[in-house]
């Protein structure tokens, strides 16, 4: 196993009786971008501040490049570290160029004139235009972020800690910040540890992802591994959009399905999963608004079925499920498919993109829990479902 550039081992940190970090372990490889995700207020920033030396951990150790030291306390010969604060933390009384040159002037023997020259050169490299002599209050939030990033880069750091670098920015600026992080990492060759809530944007620039919950890292892996994760809290966080859609659709979600599964098995014979495939006719981006409209149409069609069925469970914006009573499975399935066919025909007329709803029926006696259902669904997705035209 390679030696990580940053290694966090069994770190604990409490504020009074509030335990924030409870035996935190994390490895960050040299030259990688690692993103830490997690709900607000669970201590992600505290972790970054422990690494930066602003907070001292109660126990455990943080090794940067194999050395046990914290942030600036590593000394001039130690690994160089920079911190990009959520609110940028630019000094109000200094101009942009003075802000960027400050670390050089204050911590190295560089003469102010030389430091300003270096800062201006960096401004050119980072396309910061003519804002050098402006004060932070005179420039936009996006520009402030770039100045803060320039200040973080001026000392040629080996490790940069990004604390929610896109907080408060509009979607376009968020994307440009992520692009900057990925681009500068290549140009300036640093290791990045980033805290971000922006899913999925942050995942595209990350080499590794860590999920933090209850003071510990509960998941760590490549961004693509997230799709294999089974922790309900993590799934809820990643698929936060589903929560909104499930509320809008007026349905209970996966958590309720897990809780009510035994009751479903007692009351119904089958469980039907309705799913949607999208057939795009022209290139372009999709917000999912029309798909959600077709979802609502499909739900309405199923709700009107005369057979005994349970409430409908929101699984995600492409799937919903429900328990179905009766013994004649084929007839029941045919009726469900007929209802979905009508929906498919209606939405095909309304939208250029075609949304094809289909269903799969499972005997509840064969499915002990929803997790088993996911496995069956994964297999079904590989095989061709009984999709109505």
């Amino acid at each position, binding site marked *: 196993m390679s030696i990580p550039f940053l290694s966090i081992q069994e770190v604990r940190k409490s504020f009074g009786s509030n335990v924030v970090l409870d035996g935190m372990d994390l490895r960050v490889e040299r030259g990688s971008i690692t993103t830490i995700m997690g709900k607000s207020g669970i201590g992600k920033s505290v972790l970054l501040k422990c690494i930066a030396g602003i907070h001292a951990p109660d126990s455990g150790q943080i090794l940067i490049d194999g050395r046990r030291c914290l942030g600036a306390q590593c000394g001039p010969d130690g690994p160089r570290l920079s911190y990009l604060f959520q609110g940028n*933390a630019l000094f109000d009384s200094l101009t942009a160029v003075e802000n960027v040159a400050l670390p050089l002037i*204050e911590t190295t023997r560089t003469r102010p004139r030389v430091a300003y020259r270096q800062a201006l050169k960096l401004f050119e490299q980072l396309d910061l235009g003519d804002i050098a002599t402006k004060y932070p209050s005179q420039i936009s939030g996006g520009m402030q972020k770039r100045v803060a990033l320039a200040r973080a880069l001026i000392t040629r750091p080996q490790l940069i800690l990004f604390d929610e670098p896109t907080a408060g920015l509009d979607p376009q600026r968020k994307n440009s910040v992520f692009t900057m992080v990925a681009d500068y990492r290549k140009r300036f060759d640093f290791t990045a540890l980033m805290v971000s809530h922006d899913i999925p944007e942050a995942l595209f620039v990350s080499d590794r992802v860590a999920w933090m919950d209850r003071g510990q890292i509960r998941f760590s892996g490549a961004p693509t591994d997230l799709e294999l994760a089974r922790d309900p809290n993590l799934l809820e966080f990643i698929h936060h959009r589903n929560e909104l859609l499930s509320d809008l659709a007026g349905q209970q979600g996966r958590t309720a399905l897990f809780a009510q599964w035994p009751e479903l098995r007692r009351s119904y014979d089958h469980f039907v999963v309705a799913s949607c495939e999208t057939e795009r006719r022209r290139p372009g981006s999709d917000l999912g608004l029309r798909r959600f409209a077709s979802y609502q149409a499909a739900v309405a069609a199923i709700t009107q079925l005369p057979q005994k069925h349970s409430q409908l469970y929101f699984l995600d914006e492409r799937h919903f499920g429900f328990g179905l009573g009766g013994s004649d499975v084929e007839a029941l399935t045919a009726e469900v498919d007929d209802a979905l066919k009508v929906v498919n025909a209606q939405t095909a007329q309304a939208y250029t993109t075609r949304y094809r709803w289909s269903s799969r029926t499972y005997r509840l006696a064969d499915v002990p829990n929803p997790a088993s259902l996911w496995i069956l669904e994964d297999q079904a997705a590989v095989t061709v479902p009984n999709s109505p035209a």
Partner: protein
Amino acid sequence: MLASLGRFTIDSVTELGRFSLFIGRALWSLGRIRAFYRKMVRTTFEMGVRCVPIILTVGCFTGLIVGLEGYRTLARFGSETALGSSVAKALINGLAPVLAALMIVGQAGSALAAELGIQRNSEQIDAAQTMGINPLGYFISPRLLAALIVFPLHTVFFNLIGLFGGFVSGVVILSQEPGVYWQSVGAGLEADDLWGGLVKSVAFGFTVTAICAYEGFNTHRRSSEPGVRGVTESTTRAVVYSSIAVLTLDYLITAVQH
């Protein structure tokens, strides 16, 4: 009751210890500050200029009031000619250092606490630390030294304006001879009073700046609520504690002098 008293005592001693460490570390970092003189000159200028209008106004009115009241009191004993001396005595080692300090607390001290509180809330102090800059050396030490220059200067300034206020009361309003007033001022001035006033102003300056800086710097730790409320709390505490410190120190130094 006893438990509360014990907790209060422990908290007070702990806080005093932290405050002492804060001052000690700020002084310790004096020697390691880059571009120290530039920072100190800038801080002295900011602190000094900010307080000029208030010192002018309060100094002048204090002189006017002391002149008026003093004249009436002295007139009862037929000693109006001693007005200059009484104004000088009242101001130089008594009112001037105290009032000048209280005015600077209200003007520059509160601004210092608020500024540091905002810098703390906006993570500028943390940013300095992550850059390897000693926050105490960068934010506090130049201000502590600047206070040692600004407070005595403003006290002298207050004295001069106050004496002029006394002159307006005695000479312009109450028609005393100008020569009599200034001669009396000269007669009333003693080197001990002048030094005493300056010693007080230096002590006030250092203490007041240290308290205001400590409160602002520790906004995050001592405030029950973060954000604007926290800054307001620390600024209020800075002004109240500084004012109490000025009056307490004034009493102690005066007692030692006599």
